[in-house]
């Protein structure tokens, strides 16, 4: 279970210094999209927030991390959009439009799934802590509604919540889920 309490230190000790054999950040992105993928695809908000938690907290090298900025709905990275374009271009993912969703859903292709399986084997052998964190993040975020997930990520990394048009940080405690530190919860606007 991923510990979502606000913290500034990595979740686990680093695996060691980055080596040329480490995964590239777009490899981690593909792994996130492809692992246990739903045929209906993944929402862009999930992709950005999950990669934000991963980039900020996983024991990975600087080159593997995505830089983020405060976006309209929380952490956003231009480089993720660029890498998704690239993954789409080489046929590993596709963006599909689904009725009821304004943004495209991110789906993995059979070729992307194959590549992700190779990457997962590589990641679990070379960077097990980072791989474990990524898979945990995906499992956790999909087990809760998007609102609860976004609120938790923005509470955890408030530096990326400043421009969000939703008051995620002031979001009330969802039923059945206790905030970890009520004293640290910002007052509602």
């Amino acid at each position, binding site marked *: 279970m991923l510990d979502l309490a606000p913290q500034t230190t990595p979740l686990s000790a680093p695996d060691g210094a980055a080596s040329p054999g480490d995964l590239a950040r777009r490899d981690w992105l593909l792994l996130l999209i492809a692992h246990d993928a739903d045929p209906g695809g993944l929402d862009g908000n999930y992709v950005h927030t999950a990669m934000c938690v991963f980039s900020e907290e996983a024991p990975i090298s600087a080159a593997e991390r995505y830089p983020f900025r405060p976006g309209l709905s929380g952490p956003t990275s231009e480089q993720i959009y660029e890498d998704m374009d690239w993954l789409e271009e080489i046929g590993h993912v596709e963006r599909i439009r689904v009725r009821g969703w304004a943004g495209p859903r991110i789906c993995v292709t059979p070729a992307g799934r194959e590549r992700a399986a190779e990457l997962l084997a590589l990641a679990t052998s070379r960077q097990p802590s980072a791989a474990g964190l990524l898979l945990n993040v995906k499992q956790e975020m999909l087990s809760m*509604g998007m*609102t609860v997930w976004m609120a938790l990520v923005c509470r955890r990394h408030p530096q990326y919540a400043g421009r969000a*048009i939703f008051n995620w940080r002031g979001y009330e405690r*969802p039923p059945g889920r206790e905030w970890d530190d009520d004293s640290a919860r910002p007052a509602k606007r």
Partner: protein
Amino acid sequence: MTILLGLRSGEGVVLAADSQRTEGAFRQRMQKLFVTRHGIGWGCAGNVAIQQDLAELLEGIERNRSPAVVKQEIVAAMRESTRRATSAIETPSRVALGAVGLFAWYGAFDGASRLLRVSSEGHAEFAQTFTAGGGPTRLALFGLGRFEHVGFAELSLDAGKVVVATVTDDVIAASAHGVAAPIQLVTVTEREQFLLQDVDVEEVESAVDAFRAHQRQFLSELTPAFAPPVIGAAASAAAAPTSPC
């Protein structure tokens, strides 16, 4: 068919459009919103030939003058582009003649942003809060009207973009044919006037989806029996058949 929407928020004007060009059975993605070199954001629904001539004529219009003068010049440009585009047709049909344009600019003359709707017949009116043009205009006006309680005049530009994108997406979803995603957006403020790039539009679309998720969550808390849909792998797992034993 084209759908155009315009909204005046507290910080400026947001214009939105769909992306589909339709000629019979032929469909193609095309740019429908533009910004002139003098900072007038605009879009035109209707005859593509009118739009092409209009693009040329609008380039000469300077926005930092009295709103009435700018309006007059835009109306003249709309009439002239309609005349040019249909001059070679002996008896132009209503379809060939019909076009509606939305125009947005910030004028230093009076320090205010303007949203103008002009038809090819020359009818023009400033919109105080919002307006629409094109095929599903009534749907768009209904959709924007449903959001009026949020107070458009106090909205930030970011929030305005999300509101307009939400309604545009709803209109596209509710229209049987002729309009299609992705949406296009132009923002006009005192400081900048530009057409949003694909990446920026995708960010707005994601915010629309987060907005909808927020509404689902809100309803689920009001009504415990209403469970918001679980999305992704967890939904697949929940839907997996279980053993009767």
